[in-house]
């Protein structure tokens, strides 16, 4: 069934998702939203991996996806912890407040 959907559709979908993620990272100032956008980009890549894995009948793509998901889970834990600390210190999660690291 899945083979009836052409590979092009997957590529377009994941490219769209990735672009949404990139633009979200670039334009939003809320740290949680940026964080979610990063996850979106990761998942766009995951989707592409799985699609090609099935298309090419090669399991190694799916192995990569599991790796990425494990790393992303760890990253979420660290990233959210940073966000909590940031909120405790600045009472906001606006990234424009974090501009003190300059000359």
């Amino acid at each position, binding site marked *: 069934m899945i083979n009836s959907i052409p590979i092009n559709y997957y590529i377009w979908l994941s490219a769209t998702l990735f672009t949404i993620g*990139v633009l979200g*990272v*670039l334009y939003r100032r809320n740290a949680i939203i940026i964080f979610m956008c990063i996850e979106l980009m990761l998942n766009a890549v995951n989707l592409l991996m799985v699609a090609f894995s099935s298309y090419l009948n090669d399991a190694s793509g799916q192995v990569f996806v599991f790796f990425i998901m494990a790393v992303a889970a760890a990253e979420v834990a660290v990233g959210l912890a940073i966000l909590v600390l940031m909120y405790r210190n600045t009472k906001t999660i606006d990234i424009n407040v*974090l501009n003190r690291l300059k*000359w």
Partner: protein
Amino acid sequence: MVSIDFLVSFVPLFPLLGFLFVAFNTKRFTEGFTAVVACGSVLASFIASLSLFIHLVSTDGVRSIDVALFTWISAGDFTTSISFLIDPLSSLMLLIITGVGFLIHVYSIGYMHDDPGFNRFFSYLNLFVFFMLLLVMGDNYLVMFIGWEGVGLCSYLLIGFWFKNQAYNDAANKAFIMNRIGDLGMLLGIILIFINFGSIQYAEVFSNATNANTSTLTLITILLFIGAMGKSAQIPLYTWLPDAMAGPTPVSALIHAATMVTAGVYMVARNNLLYALSPIAMELIVIVGLATALFAATIALTQNDIKKVLAYSTVSQLGLMFLALGLGAFTGGIFHMATHAFFKALLFLGAGSVIHALHHEQDIRKMGGLRKHLPVTYLTFLIGVLAISGIPPFAGFFSKDEILASAFAHNKIVWAIALLASMLTVFYMFRLLFLTFFGNPRASHDSISHIHESPQSITMPLIALAVLSAIGGFMGIPEALGGSHWLGEFLSPVFAASQPLLEEHHLSHSTEYILMAAVVVLTAMIIGYAYSRYVTKKHLPASEGQITNPAQRILYHKYYIDEIYDLLIVKPVYWISEQFYSVVEKSGIDRLVNFSGRSVESGSKLARLLQNGSLGYYIFAMVIGIALLLGFAGRY
């Protein structure tokens, strides 16, 4: 039996060891121990020199020993070694340096007693003796030059020995800088010798000298003579010597009368062949020597500082020595150098004894009547004055007579000027003697009551030098007086090569008798005049403000030479330095340095705008960067 080679290397070794031993223990050694080490090392060196001398005298045939210690520099075609040449000339110099040096070391024990720098003083003195020995013993120009520079250094250190007095430091700097001017000429001369002869060994240079072109030789000899002008205080580089009297009196005696200042005389005598081959340089030496002799003698007439009078007298006597060398009477120059070492060291040490007794009073107007209080000093000083004035049979008579005789044979005008200079010498020396030791005491009552004769360590060297000044002339009794001129005989191998090149002037014995008689009668008349002026009429030199006679005023101010040098050289140099400071340094170098600093600073100002702290901007830059990287990566 120690082998001769060992003996030769022992001569400079002892003072060097003495210097190192004392210099590294200045805080630890007691005065007595330092004195024993320092005097002992020079005495050991004297004994070694004496046995070398005896060896030379008792050898028939070739009287010279050449000892190469080790190869020092070897680069391409150029090799030079630390090697020593002992021939009659250097052997005589060794005896004077170590002999007079030893007496002055002993004298210094008494003179420098209780000085906080006692140990330092003796280490410098030993170092000086070492370098002076190196200067006269070297068998090539380079070893001589090391000694030449080394004695200059020691002279500087000892003139500024009491370095807490800024005037003394200035005098030391003046001596050092003046000598540097001369040394530059010396160095250029040595370089020219190497270029033209391909060697700096005396033996090789002299054996090829006759093939060399005369103008080159003239240039070389004049450059070397410029070195001698600096070291031996000749016009125009003489002004440092009177100022050098800032040093302790034994230093004035050893360095600035007996040994170092005669290095120039030694150097010219050593190179007698080169000088004989370049008549122009010889003429120059005659003119400079004669001018210096007269010029310095006239200045000495009006000076009131006991050491300054002696200093100008030294300059004048050195002029006479150069006159002799320039006339080709090398033996006469060396003879006068030897006798001068005795009587001038004696006079300086005597002056030191007076200064010591009067608690550092140097003005002869505040002395007088010291004959009764300082009998030994008076008697020895009197012998020194008689010797320098050329009263027979004291040392100065024979050596000065020899110079005057060769001047008479050469040119009557030269003779007349030299005679005038030596008669002026008689006058100012007796003026000094009468003002210091005769008449009524002019020192304050307080210091008169404390006067006592100096300790034995001071009087013994005085007596020894007085004996030498009295009999030193007998080593060169002229044939006219029935002697055989032993010194001339002894030195003849050194000057053998140059003698055929020079015109022979022979005076008949009757002419010599007339000259001697005339000189002695003139001398006696001048002594009589000085006696009536300073003892009978009790004339006292006026103080500076009271001098009305313009000629006397000019003499008192030493022809204003120091002021002229100051105006012509020192001030312009300062002015140029000031210009360099304000133009080159401030608006050139400083600006360049500041510009490079500022440009880095403004560059970083631009670069740091990238780090604006905004996270969004960083992410944007990152995305653009990755996109560009991927874009490039995708193209290949």
